[in-house]
């Protein structure tokens, strides 16, 4: 009896069924693959025809993916910096220097039980964190990270930003109202009053800047500040920059304006009744807001991705592989070997116990590291978007550090002091700033 026959005989009925089904499934999948291959070019051409759509989808996805590590990084930064200000060590057990702790917090929150309290308005209660989180993410979409590297650039980007920023208040108010908790209600109403009254100085403080630049597109605002450091708007609009920073702090509900989740007064403010991942959304949105506010401050007043000074050593990488011809092959073949030997030889000579192969391995690793470093350096000095990105994040995290610093230092203001400050000081100051700017523009135009 043939092998096939014996095998078939030993199969149980489900085994037989599977044996029949497998080839069929394979055939079907092959057919599907063929269809894809045939229709692929059409799809590609379609996407190529309307590229903005593709660009938008890609940018939105990228921004959405950007928020999570950003929030984790800022949470870890806050933990460590505040610990440093408290003369503590801070997290140092989970991951190197506790760097994984924020991720662990996030995943733990994800795995917690998540329930709606009795009496809560379930629909509003469920959607409030989503609204808050999405508002933060959407306002990230218009920020230019580097030359040519931004989600969308349209001429009312600034207006869009403030509109979306105002949207987050709706989320907080929903949370406070739907939680069926008086502390939450107080927190939600506080946040509504606070954010709405600080919207006005926040918006007015940038009008002068808009007058100077003549545009509301963030990308072009950054381009206006290119050149030397003196072209930054902070030097042309110092008062505006100050008002913007203060109002933005209140906008992001950060200390000393964190009345909405004042731990010592109203237990956790609007988030009192939230648990699990819904609380995690609030948690993330707070830190994403910090990042966004810092990024916007940098974009508007501190030159965006412009370097404060030009790179002193201009390097022109003009390496045309075609010009090398055959030598290119030699280069590719020889350079790794030579580099590996170059790194491995001193080790092997110096340490007699080290076997040659280990020395070669270490040398190869070191060589690769060196190649990567050189590549990054070349990219930094040659591709301007890398430079822009580096400067942008550097400036942004300086401001993030400032927020954390304020949180570690300052007590909380009272609600009436908050309102007095907004209406009696910030608003007149921003109006004055606007007036002076307009006057200066008119006079200079004459």
């Amino acid at each position, binding site marked *: 009896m043939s092998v096939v026959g014996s095998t078939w005989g*030993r*199969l*149980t009925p*489900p*085994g037989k069924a*599977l044996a029949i089904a497998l080839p069929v499934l394979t055939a079907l999948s092959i057919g599907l693959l063929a269809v894809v291959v045939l229709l692929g070019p059409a799809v590609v051409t379609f996407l190529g025809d309307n590229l903005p759509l593709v660009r938008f989808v890609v940018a939105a996805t990228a921004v959405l993916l950007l928020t999570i590590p950003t929030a984790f990084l800022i949470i870890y930064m806050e*933990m460590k910096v505040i*610990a440093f200000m*408290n*003369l*503590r*060590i*801070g*997290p*140092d*057990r*989970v991951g190197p220097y*506790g760097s994984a*702790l924020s991720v*662990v*917090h996030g*995943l*733990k929150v994800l*795995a*917690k*039980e*998540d*329930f709606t309290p009795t009496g809560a308005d379930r629909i509003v209660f469920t959607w409030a964190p989503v609204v808050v989180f999405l508002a933060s993410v959407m306002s990230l979409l218009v920020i230019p990270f580097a030359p040519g590297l931004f989600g969308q650039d349209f001429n009312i980007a600034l207006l869009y930003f403030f509109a979306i920023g105002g949207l987050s208040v709706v989320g907080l108010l929903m949370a406070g109202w739907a939680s069926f908790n008086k502390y939450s209600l107080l927190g939600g109403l506080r946040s509504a009053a606070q954010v709405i009254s600080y919207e006005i100085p926040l918006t007015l403080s940038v009008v002068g800047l808009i007058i100077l630049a003549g545009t509301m597109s963030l990308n072009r605002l950054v381009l206006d500040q290119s050149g030397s450091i003196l072209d930054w708007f902070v030097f042309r609009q110092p008062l505006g920059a100050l008002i913007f920073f203060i109002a933005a702090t209140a906008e992001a509900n950060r200390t000393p304006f964190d009345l909405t989740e004042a*731990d*010592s007064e109203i*237990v*956790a403010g609007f*988030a*009192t*009744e*939230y*648990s*699990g991942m819904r*609380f995690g959304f609030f948690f993330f949105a707070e830190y994403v807001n910090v990042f966004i506010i810092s990024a916007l401050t940098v974009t508007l007043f501190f030159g965006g991705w412009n370097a404060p000074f030009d790179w002193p050593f201009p390097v022109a990488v003009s390496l045309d592989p075609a010009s090398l011809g055959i030598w290119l092959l030699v280069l590719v073949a020889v350079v790794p070997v030579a580099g590996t030997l170059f790194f491995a030889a001193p080790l092997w000579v110096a340490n007699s116990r080290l076997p040659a192969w280990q020395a070669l391995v270490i040398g190869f690793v070191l060589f690769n590291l060196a190649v990567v470093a050189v590549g990054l350096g070349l990219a930094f000095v040659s591709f301007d978007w890398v430079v822009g990105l580096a400067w942008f994040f550097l400036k942004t995290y300086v401001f993030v550090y400032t927020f954390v610093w304020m949180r570690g230092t300052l007590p909380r203001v009272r609600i009436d002091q908050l309102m007095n400050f907004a209406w009696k000081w910030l608003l007149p100051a921003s109006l004055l700033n606007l007036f002076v700017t307009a006057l200066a523009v008119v006079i200079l135009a004459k």
Partner: protein
Amino acid sequence: MALTPGTPPAGGAGGGAELPVPAGGRSELVEPIVVPNTLWRPADPVADDRDRALDEITHLRQLEASGLVRRDDARWGGALEVIPTKADYVLDLIRMNSLWPLLSGLACCAIEMMSAATSRNDMDRWGMFPFRASPRQADVLIVAGTLTTKMAGPLLRLWEQMPEPKWCVAMGDCTCSGGRYKRSYSTIEGIDRIMPVDVYVPGCPPRPEGLIYGMMKLQQIVKDARGHWPEKPVGPTVPDGI
């Protein structure tokens, strides 16, 4: 909340022996998940025994019976065994490393609890620092201080407001056993009369190092629970006769 049997037997004051003692999140490990062989009959008569239940015939036993390799050499079988519990294990590693206590102190021990979180001995190093003010976001309830009969209700409400998975640490003699107020007319002799306790930290009050040691013991418990927190007795368990 049904805390007591409707008509407790008179004179059952000391009767706390037969009640379900709240095990501190501990439960035996699950059996590894095995894939029953329902697709073919083994050619090897040793492995092909029909009297055994079908689900006991596994690929691993096939492998053992074939005598070619040892059972432990089966990489894919090992994977089949390990993967389902490994996920819970990773989840427990995560939970173990971020235990947010509830910011609630009852009495003297609360000061030492705060001292355990401050600069001298820093609980933040294990990720235990953000003392949440709202029970909805807390993981650990550190009952620090004497529990009086008047405070027992609010404390139970706090415990029931905390989301799963949650743990309870009894800090101080008063919460472990009644301590120096055992004779009093208004205290509860140990919180394990009204709620499950995972870790007892004796001392009057225990030093902050003691509390931190207890929290590290709690971390071990969380790690050993291997993601089976639903099996933990949750909610108040009260002996008869109180």
